[in-house]
């Protein structure tokens, strides 16, 4: 009897988990339109990606994805409610329907995409593990780091990537692991280690914490692939398409030279058919997505094209000053590429 009961409990659990993992097609957009806002899961604090200013407004590259989706659906980028989530609860929150989008520096991996009942809609930031060194060391490439003492900001895969990289290049190193980013920044400053390794986006944030940020440089090598992107529930293709094409619209807008400043004028008098199709002056591409005709205009006008949000949040126009690198457009040597609107 006991046996039967516990089996039953397991089955029920599995059923509940399974059911809540899959949403019905079209259900999310309907629900979002009904409640009047997009519920967006963001990080509980990551410089440049999601953080709050003095007035309590959320800002950042990941936050802008949420705002862009709201602009596409409602024509109003402010119709977003944010749920700050910790790394551990993020997938549950999405699976259980607590949030409609998860835009929280989440690395796209096969297991997450396939096993968790989630779909990655694209990549809004190509991250990867890198190295931060003091300029005094005179090192210009990670290949010259043989025998270095390396400070590691403890992460899930940081240590593994590091040991793989040094072994593959036949180099030796001494690791020192720290739990928080503040500790590791302090120890680099005190000279306890020659190199600090972490995801590149984090290294730029670390650099600001140092007394003289200009004395330090992030080396060009990237030793791991960390594509970060927004995630939605599996099974609702319509909502998946909306989030995915919101990202694509921002990248396409940058490629076509449409900015928040010129988007309205461009929409009126453009001669370029690509631009006309993107901005809805030609064709009915918004309707296919069940969005208003001017969905892309609203995204670019209220949030900006991809280049603008990058600059404002993490790039040259921000405190972090991260270079475009992998996140440059495909025709400028980067990986940001969006299919055409046609």
């Amino acid at each position, binding site marked *: 009897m006991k046996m039967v009961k516990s089996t039953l409990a397991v089955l029920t*659990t599995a059923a509940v*988990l399974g059911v809540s993992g899959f949403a019905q097609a079209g259900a999310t957009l309907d629900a979002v339109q009904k409640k009047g806002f997009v519920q967006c899961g963001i990080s509980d*604090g*990551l410089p440049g990606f999601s953080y*709050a*200013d003095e*007035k309590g407004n959320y800002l950042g590259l990941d936050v802008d994805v949420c705002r862009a989706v709201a602009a596409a659906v409602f024509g109003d980028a402010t119709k977003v409610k944010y749920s*700050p989530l910790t790394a*551990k*609860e993020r997938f549950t929150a999405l699976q259980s329907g607590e949030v409609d989008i998860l835009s929280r520096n989440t690395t796209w991996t096969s297991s997450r995409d396939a096993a968790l009942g989630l779909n990655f809609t694209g990549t809004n930031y190509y991250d990867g593990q890198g190295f931060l060194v003091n300029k005094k060391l005179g090192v210009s490439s990670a290949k010259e780091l043989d025998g270095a003492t390396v400070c590691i900001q403890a992460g899930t895969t940081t240590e593994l990537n590091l040991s793989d990289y040094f072994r593959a290049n036949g180099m030796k190193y001494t690791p020192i692991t720290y739990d928080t980013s503040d500790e590791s920044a302090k120890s680099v400053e005190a000279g306890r280690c020659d190199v600090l390794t972490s995801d590149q986006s984090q290294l730029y944030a670390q650099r600001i914490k140092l007394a003289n940020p200009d004395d330090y440089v992030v080396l060009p090598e990237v030793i791991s692939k960390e594509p970060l992107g927004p995630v939605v529930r599996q099974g609702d293709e319509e909502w998946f398409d909306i989030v995915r094409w919101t990202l694509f619209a921002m990248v396409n807008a940058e490629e076509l030279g449409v900015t928040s400043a010129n988007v309205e004028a461009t929409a009126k008098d453009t001669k370029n058919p690509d631009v006309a199709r993107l901005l809805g002056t030609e064709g009915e591409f918004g309707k296919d997505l069940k969005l208003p005709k001017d969905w892309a205009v609203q995204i670019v006008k209220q949030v900006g094209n991809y280049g603008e949000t990058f600059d404002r949040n993490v790039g040259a126009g921000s405190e972090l000053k991260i270079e475009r690198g992998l996140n440059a457009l495909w025709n400028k040597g980067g990986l940001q590429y969006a299919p055409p609107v046609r």
Partner: protein
Amino acid sequence: MQTHTFKPDLPPPRMSVGAVGWLKANLFSNWFNSLLTLFALYLIWLVVPPLLQWAIIDANWVGSTRADCTQEGACWVFIQQRFGQFMYGFYPSELRWRVDATLWLAIVGAAPLFVPQMPRKAFYGLGFLVIYPVIAWCLLHGGVFGLSVVSTSQWGGLMLTLVIASVGITGALPLGILLALGRRSNLPAIKVICVTFIEFWRGVPLITVLFMSSVMLPLFLPEGMHFDKLMRALIGVILFQSAYIAEVVRGGLQAIPKGQYEAAAAMGLGYWRMMGLVILPQALKLVIPGIVNVFIALFKDTSLVIIIGLFDLLNSIKQATTDPAWLGMATEGYAFAALVFWIFCFGMSRYSLHLERKLDTGHKR
């Protein structure tokens, strides 16, 4: 007749009075203690001057951005700029008066309880405990009397810390007392239930409870049904702490001599009257230090809600340090959090000392 005149008393030896005497008695009574004193002085000299230098002398007090701060000292500008957020979290700034009003109502409403001459204190206190939470909820959350709704996800800062702590304390104490009575009950069913409950909740760490409430629970609820995150945490905290309170109170119940129970029964008092009028007043008085200890621990444990993404005081500070405009201010932030927590915990322990002295009506052993 010979009269005997006393000689005037000699003054005590100079080494045993005044500052010198105090020093000799307390700090340099023998060579070992002298050594310890010198060592402690050395430690103080090592720690305190640099700390003062950093926190006060070299510190930056005025300005509005990180650029206004020098690298040498603490940058209190950060605390100043973010003070509102540390106190109220993301509560809309034009509605913060509602939080203030809630706090003032608590102070004004509870004040009569501290006046010794107040008649019918128990009734007033019970009434206050029933009515106040309703008013507080209406004020903080809104949605009635034309107050706009501020969802709990916008609550944060010290306000959230106090909400969790006070709800946890007021919820856990009555539940804990009932559990303690239940555990000592003669009815087997009640006893088994209470023992199981207490041992279960004492057996799991609070972090697990919070984690389960935020990660596992939503998966078991039907689609589209969402339990408020703060509510889940509050229920977890109350159940968890009530188990600890129950054990503390049980200690008090066991310390009451059997004669008290028998005397109360001999007077014809029923179970609840015996407990309410004779046993509990004595038992609770005995365990004040234990209960306050649990409360102080609870107050500090509230910062564990950081793992479920609620923005209490500590998490608000942590989040503010991730603003690129204020990167590298973690030390200042955590120092501030420590100060605030210390003020509250110290206040609680002082109040418990005062309570003990006030209620000390004999039974000194």
